[in-house]
């Protein structure tokens, strides 16, 4: 009875949106399946359908777990997750990466779960009453908490997941109520790096930083040190750049100019953009996409499923999809705002960020706004570990979104 009562408290709208997204994903996957020759493997459509049941079970587990459990065991779960993202390094590489834990019948990607586990541990740390938000030093620990798993995942190598693990950091720190100046201190190095390759932008940025430091009035020493270290970071970035993998470099370069490398990673962007553009407002119709079915689109069942939907079902349909995502994210933020306790509020904002980052990077890369990152679309893309992780996040959201303690 209690279980039913708890479920009545749940935000059914968010659950409904998530399930609609899942069904949209199946529509796309089934279209791919009709015309596809699967070379010695099962179609993603069937796989995806099979994952629904475990997804729902995991949703309920995450939902029925009492809130204090997450709060209490946050650090334990975190430790376990660090361990599990490190374990694949012991085993063999799968497709040249160390992303998978192979259990024979099923492969698990621990980094998918690390994403929201980092959110829980950050929320636990940032919701502490004794936290001194006036001091910049306070932020070192949360940064480390996110940076450690992100670094391990980056080494797998999985740049996309590493970025996703880092993405909730700044929104959560902001949400916890620190001075906006601190946020600036966190973001500034990134901007230094990005502008470093363009002398004019770098000069503008240098001046802008100076203005911000002047307005925010930090102590003289800390202000001067931060300012010059950020400048130095910008000057060093060309060297840091050389540390990246060639394929990562190439992906970033082609973001700015896809035509440079039409058969490399930009090939995917061009093809996907063409598919989406060719779809027009109404689309070519289900199962009719020539781009999709003549195999221009690589990884169309996961990273580029948006292109399949865009080509076959058109702009109108994509807008419905975007509105669904907007409602989902908006709803999560609203729950975070209305939440009574800080821990739940922070978890919600963190998970919201993860889902939004996935959505944004995926849809933006398909039209050439961001580099090709290989990030799947939540609830829609085929992919076992990620889909299950999405259902778990949904359980967590609905759980944290209830304004009751147990």
């Amino acid at each position: 009875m209690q279980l039913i009562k708890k479920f009545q408290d749940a935000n059914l709208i968010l659950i409904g949106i998530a399930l609609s997204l899942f069904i949209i994903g199946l529509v796309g996957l089934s279209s791919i399946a009709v015309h596809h020759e699967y070379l010695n493997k099962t179609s993603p459509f069937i796989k995806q359908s099979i994952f629904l049941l475990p997804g729902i079970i995991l949703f309920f587990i995450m939902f029925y777990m009492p809130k204090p459990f997450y709060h209490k065991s946050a650090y334990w779960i975190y430790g376990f997750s660090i361990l599990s993202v490190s374990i694949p390094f012991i085993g063999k590489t799968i497709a040249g990466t160390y992303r998978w834990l192979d259990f024979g019948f099923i492969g698990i990607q621990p980094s998918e779960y690390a994403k929201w586990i980092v959110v829980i541990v950050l929320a636990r740390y940032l919701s502490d009453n004794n936290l001194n938000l006036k001091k910049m030093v306070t932020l070192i620990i949360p940064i480390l908490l996110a940076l450690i798993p992100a670094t391990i995942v980056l080494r797998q190598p999985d740049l996309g997941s590493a970025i996703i693990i880092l993405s909730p950091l700044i929104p959560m720190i902001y949400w916890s109520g620190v001075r906006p100046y601190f946020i600036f201190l966190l973001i500034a190095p990134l901007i230094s790096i990005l502008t470093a390759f363009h002398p004019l932008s770098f000069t503008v940025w240098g001046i802008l930083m100076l203005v911000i430091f002047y307005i925010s009035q930090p102590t003289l020493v800390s202000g001067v040190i931060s300012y010059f270290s950020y400048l130095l970071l910008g000057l060093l970035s060309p060297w840091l750049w050389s540390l990246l993998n060639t394929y990562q470099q190439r992906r970033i370069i082609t973001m700015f100019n896809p035509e440079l490398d039409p058969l490399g990673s930009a090939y995917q962007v061009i093809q996907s953009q063409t598919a989406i553009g060719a779809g027009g407002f109404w689309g070519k119709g289900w199962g009719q996409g020539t781009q999709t079915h003549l195999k221009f689109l690589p990884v169309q069942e996961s990273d580029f499923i948006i292109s399949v939907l865009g080509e076959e079902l058109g702009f109108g349909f994509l807008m419905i999809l975007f509105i669904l995502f907007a409602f989902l994210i908006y709803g999560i933020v609203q729950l975070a705002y209305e939440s009574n306790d800080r821990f739940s509020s922070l978890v919600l904002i963190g998970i919201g960020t993860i889902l939004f980052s996935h959505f944004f990077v995926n849809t933006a890369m398909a039209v050439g706004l961001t580099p090709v990152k290989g990030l799947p679309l939540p609830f829609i893309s085929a992919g076992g570990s990620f889909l299950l992780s999405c259902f778990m996040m949904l359980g967590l959201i609905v759980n944290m979104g209830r304004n009751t303690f147990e």
Partner: protein
Amino acid sequence: MLKAENIIQLGQLRVVRGVLLFLFFILIARYFQIQILNHDIYHKKAEGNRIRAISLPAPRGLILDRDENILVDNYPTFILSAIPIEFNDKEKKIGLISDLMGISTDIMEINYSNYYRNKFLPVRLAKNLSFKQLSILEENKTSLGGTYYGKLPKRFYTDHLNGIHFLGYVGEINRKKINQLRDSHSYTIGDFIGWSGIEKYYEELLIGEKGIDFFEVNAIGEIVENLSDKTVQPVPGSNLKLSIHSKLQKSMEQLMKDNSGSVLISNAYTGEILSYVSSPDLSTKKLSGGTTQKDWEKIIADSDTPLLDRNTSGLYPPGSIFKLITLFPLLEENKIYSSWETNCGGTYSFGDRVFNCWKEGGHGTVNMENAVAQSCNIYFYQAVQSLTLEKWSGTCRNLGFGYKTEIDLPEEKTGLIPDRQYLNNKHGKWGWSRGAMLNLALGQGEILVTPIQLLQFANIVATNGKTNKLHFRLGNTSELLLSESYSDKTWRLIQKFIRSTITHSKGTGKLADPHIRDLYISGKTGTAQNPHGEPHAWFFGFGKYKEEILSVVVLIENGGHGGEVSAPIARQAFEIYFSDKIQAHLSHAIN
């Protein structure tokens, strides 16, 4: 700690909403730009965007004999296919291909409808293209947009060895078949699949993985470039090493050319099959492609049933070989001592019926050893009286009859071992009497066994029951477990008796012995009455040379007496196999 108040400000919420709104706006604007504003540009681009993926079939794994000679190989053939969405003016193009290459339009139209999957995937138009046809195709590619040619590896049988009954053959998957396949995703119409024999049993191992070839084509579907750096090469299937002894197999096929029946030879300890002949058979050449529908119809209609694998699917009464079955429980439970003697006068009365010995006038006084060696019926009519039907049928089952041998072939029959329940069902509770036992003891009546079961039985007897399951694939050994074991004394006596069959001056199996030094042959003959004419001639036995035991089963359908017809074939098998061994030993000794 959990109850730390949420201290979030409305301002923070507004900032977050603002950021989200901004990002959503950018995204929607970009999609609007691409899908609505620039739709025409991308639409044109998609039309001209032509890279085609054509799957590359993987060669099946080779099948080798025990000395790694290739038994089944592949050879490349060329096929012509077309992608329907690009193959506009289909009739015209098919007409042109027909004119250029001399392939009838009807065949291509039939192929087109048979192989059609959907408008995006290639359809096969013609097979077995010659190099000349390929070059004509290449010269005229501008007028044949949408067509592709590619390799299709086909099975090729290298040796003169037939072996179709164990090698099996592959067949092409058609529309009907593909729906029956459990995992149809791995296969498409036009692929080859193992249809029977080893090809079917080890399909998973032999099949390999397909690859993909990418082509860039222009607006009329003509290939501009093969994007070879994107090609995913097919992975050939794994090679399969069989235990077949090609020389032995070939000789046995020759010997059986004019007979119907089977010859089975194995290593008694390991269970490895060395020779597997079911006669009549088909030349594998007939299967190396090019078999027409008409040929097939002829083969299927042949009254000699060359497609039937007699070794695993032929059911026969075992005849006198089954007399040995009776001995197991008798000796094991000391129901009769091996020294017990009886007089064979040629006839035996049971109830109101008279049963005869095969030898008119009888064998005179016989003990157990003589009864086996000379295959005396009267002795066994009497001996079987001390067994129940349950005991007898249980012994048959324990020794592998009535079950599959689980040899690595897809089809196998279990045969028939009648027990009380079976006879009750068939004849009614009062419709049969213990007199049925007399027939069963002689391996006659309602017993049916397969030759392969008898080969397994030979291995069991030769090794005191410590053998492995029969198999073709080298290394695929697994122990054969008898649910009931027998004492050493039982094994020793039975082995002694079947040795006498060969050595005794009146032994029925005398002709099986090639008289090679250090080679000890044992065996039992069978002459199985059947309603189809002359009795079936059986020989069952093994030859022991040093540490090696070669087991042999020979069946000649309607051949007459086992000792006269089948035993000599077994002798040849022993001779061929062991003379090589001895040669090897000798040259080894000299060096």
